[in-house]
């Protein structure tokens, strides 16, 4: 006799259905000897029991053999008992044993893999969100490239309708004519049909919607000293429209909303109007502002309008000591960096500039 005993449950013909507690042991001849704990039960002996993983989650070892009266099985399920059984088993069992011992681990691995995959599927929208946030600019550029000009104009109409609800828009009169005149020089050759509006609002602000809708607040018109100053601001806004900045922002917002809806269910009401509403109060990124400055400057130069007006206007806005910064500055942060850049660029430019044949004071007299 060698080896230590391992505890298990013995099942077989003539035994209770639930089995009886028994201990097993490998003897010197490599046979399995099973001794029931209950007195009065005979010892069983198996020459070459078949070994397999069995039971709930394959967590037990089943040693089964045939006797003349029927099939017997010893089920060993304690961790220590299983390893004792494996350690003392005769050589001819080793292959079956090794396979049986591996079974629970395989099961566990597959179980984890399965749940991992499920978790991945459930987390997909979250992952998408993160990827989108990391690549928002590239994705937005790609999508914006696919949007036709006609669609953009339709979006512009939506924004215009929204804006009309919020403020009074003037679409004729000397001020609008002055805007259209300057704007026309800046937007020569554009695919968009530009329309110019004056909003009766005291803030110093202006914005460009997709599809060529430009709205200038009366506060800005009255605070601009010369037509060149106004041209500078218009050039900046036109650049936003031409570079499709607001469209890009909207695509980003929509993508974000779609992903959020995927994550959290449909929380958006009317996606398009919602986006259009937010478009009117859109904040551009610093990069977009810098881009618009550069593009606006090119437009001024191309139209032979003096860019010094642009610099002067920004300088005056930045210098003015107001309790709250002008709206143009808060939405278009004219940081010192941007102003410095503009000064450097303009200083490098050589004239001659054609003066604009517009008397801004007279054109805006009705707004004062």
């Amino acid at each position, binding site marked *: 006799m060698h080896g230590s005993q391992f505890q298990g449950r013995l*099942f077989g013909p003539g035994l209770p259905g*639930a*089995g009886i507690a028994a201990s097993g042991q490998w003897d010197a001849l490599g046979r399995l000897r099973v001794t029931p704990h209950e007195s009065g039960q005979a010892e069983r002996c198996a020459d070459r029991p078949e070994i397999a993983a*069995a*039971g709930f989650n394959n*967590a037990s070892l*089943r040693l*089964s053999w045939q006797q003349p009266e029927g099939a017997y099985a010893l089920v060993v*399920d304690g961790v220590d008992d299983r390893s004792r059984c494996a350690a003392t088993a005769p050589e001819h069992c080793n292959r079956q044993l090794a396979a049986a011992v591996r079974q629970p681990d395989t099961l*566990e691995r597959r179980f984890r893999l399965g749940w991992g995959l499920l978790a991945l599927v459930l987390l997909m929208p979250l992952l998408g969100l993160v990827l989108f946030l990391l690549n928002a600019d590239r994705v937005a550029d790609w999508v914006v490239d696919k949007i036709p000009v006609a669609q953009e104009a339709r979006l512009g109409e939506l924004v215009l309708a929204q804006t009309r609800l919020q403020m009074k828009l003037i679409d004729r009169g000397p001020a609008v004519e002055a805007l259209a005149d300057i704007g026309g020089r800046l937007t020569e050759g554009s695919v968009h049909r530009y329309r110019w509006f004056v909003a009766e609002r005291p803030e110093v602000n202006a914005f460009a919607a997709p599809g060529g809708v430009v709205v200038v607040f009366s506060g800005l018109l009255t605070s601009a000293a010369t037509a060149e100053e106004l041209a500078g601001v218009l050039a900046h806004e036109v650049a936003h429209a031409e570079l499709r900045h607001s469209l890009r922002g909207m695509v980003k917002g929509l993508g974000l909303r779609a992903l959020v809806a995927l994550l959290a269910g449909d929380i958006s009401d009317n996606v398009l109007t919602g986006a259009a509403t937010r478009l009117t109060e859109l904040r551009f990124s610093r990069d977009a502002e810098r881009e618009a400055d550069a593009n606006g400057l090119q437009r001024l130069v191309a139209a032979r309008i003096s860019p010094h007006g642009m610099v002067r206007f920004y300088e005056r806005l930045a210098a003015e000591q107001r309790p709250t910064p002008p709206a143009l500055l808060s939405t278009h942060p004219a940081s010192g960096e941007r102003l410095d850049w503009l000064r450097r660029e303009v200083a490098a430019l050589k004239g001659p500039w054609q003066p604009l044949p517009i008397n801004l004071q007279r054109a805006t007299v009705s707004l004062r």
Partner: protein
Amino acid sequence: MAMDLIDYTIVGSEMQFVEVELDPGEAAIGEAGAMMYMQDGIQMDTVFGDGSQQASGLMGKLLGAGKRLLTGESLFTTVFHNEGQGKRRVAFAAPYPGKIIPVDLGQIGGTLICQKDSFLCAAKGVSLGIAFQKKLGAGLFGGEGFIMQRLDGDGMTFVHAGGTLQEQVLAPGETLRVDTGCVVAFQPSVDFDIQFVGKIKSAIFGGEGLFFATLRGPGKIWLQSLPLSRLANRIIMSAPAAGGRSTDQGSLLGAGILGGILGSDD
């Protein structure tokens, strides 16, 4: 672990309750809300978790309670102590038509794996745990879901399920194919797995679903004839007020496969 030995009587035929007799100082644990009546002298105490480990600290209790939440039972269990002088009785009723089966954990080796939500009551000292079904196929299509309940100890426990409950003995190597959802409990020595019904035609039109649950011996198993969800399905089908458009579960065309994943206790 010292278990309380309890005497019991199961009363009724199809809608049963079990009456447990407690000696002075003995206690039983019951699923919250299962108590039907109790005599004078029995003190009821509601504990967080399963009441088997009294001094395991807050974290242990929270963990135990979390497990119970997973198996679909309430966070609290109720312990019924006999504080009186003589024998006192307390009864626990089954929540829906079916049978109550007594299982002596001591006689089956100390562990019983059962359908979640099937525990009714037990002698104090029996611990309630969860047993994750780690075979993905069996978890998805076996009808019992991934979460099963594990009862450990060596006292009496009472398990309840729908319809008629039958105890069967599987000899070593004997295999029984069972309709999914009909397995109530089994000894841990029993293999629980699934098997494809065999033919596409049977899978779609046979009404037995795509898979059978297979139980391979040795060991004892307990089967129910009528899972509650099937009964509920039939009731809704014939209830005009509920709009009753439904099919028997098990058909690929009818009830969803996903129900099993998300843990319907069918």
